[in-house]
């Protein structure tokens, strides 16, 4: 089973019924796979903060959800994550590509690589990095921690995980 299928399987185990997304090329295969699952309502959005608010609304409908995006998109959501999710203690589970890592040699991702984790720490948003296929099974625990901590929780997918060892 490839890693995208493994992540999808774990999201199903979490009871995810809605996914709101805006693609980054690392998470695009996962979005495509989820969009084809008729048990999950897929909501493509025009801006990542829409996904945050859609998942927050879904919480009150009793529906478990996930927001899928790239690291750059996560940076655009910080105001909404603070003034909606922190303000009201609404959990929102995000799956985000960990761009700007030492093996991501794209110049336009370098700030995301240096500043994203310190930014999450400043907001006190918990996060968990999934780097290897055998760590994908941690997703249900991460999802439950998000609900328990009642705040945004970011699950990062590394380049090695989504592209494979030694990918160029």
């Amino acid at each position, binding site marked *: 089973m490839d890693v995208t299928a493994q992540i999808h399987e774990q999201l199903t185990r979490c009871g995810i019924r809605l996914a709101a997304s805006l693609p980054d090329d690392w998470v695009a295969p996962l979005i495509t796979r989820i969009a084809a699952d008729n048990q999950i309502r897929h909501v493509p959005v025009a801006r990542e*903060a*829409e996904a945050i608010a*859609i998942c927050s609304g879904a919480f009150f409908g009793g529906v478990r959800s996930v927001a899928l995006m790239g690291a750059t998109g996560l940076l655009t959501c910080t105001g*909404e994550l603070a003034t*909606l999710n922190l303000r009201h203690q609404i959990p929102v589970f995000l799956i985000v590509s960990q761009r700007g890592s030492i093996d991501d040699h794209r110049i336009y991702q370098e700030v995301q690589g240096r500043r994203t984790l310190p930014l999450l720490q400043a907001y006190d948003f918990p996060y968990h990095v999934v780097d290897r296929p055998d760590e994908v099974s941690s997703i249900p625990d991460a999802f439950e921690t998000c609900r328990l901590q009642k705040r945004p929780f970011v699950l990062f997918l590394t380049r090695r995980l989504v592209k494979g060892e030694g990918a160029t």
Partner: protein
Amino acid sequence: MKAREAIEVLARHRGEAVAVCALGMAANEWWAATKSEDSFYMHGAMGFAASFALGLALSLPQAPVWLINADGSLCMNLGCLLTEAAQAAKNLKHFVVANGVYQTVGALPMVNEGRTDYAAMARAAGFARARTIEAREELARQMPAIAAEDGPSFTVLRVEPESGFLRTPPMTYEGPEMKYRFGRALERRFGIQVFGPQGY
């Protein structure tokens, strides 16, 4: 018409609708008119009450969901029109109280005021039902049909700006308290589970 008058007409035709209100004038006036706990009043995330309402409508298809938006908030997130039109939630109605100013901060004029046709923008995004209503009597006349029609629909309520600050007080619940009151109200009404057995 005044914003308060428009909101009061909406409130009278609300029926069983669950409301999501943009922060500021829309939320404050809806609270003043309804004092309802099965409404969500945004405290922040300006522009994203629309997305919140869409997520709620998709997740709770048995509930009519009304979005009480305002023009300042709509313009913060015009892309919401594309997402709403694409999802085509039959239970979602989008109302925009449009006064052309940022009322809550002292009625400073909005960008491009007087030239923007929000209903035309909604139609261009794919809404089959979009209109602008300017008079209280016309709103009262049209509301039964608007309340009964399938969503997604988009209704602009063109209201007069007030002079200076509008001092209607906001609803009185703190952020987490409002979350629990709103969530528990939906659990009771719809028999759903928002919170788990340990309360989170």
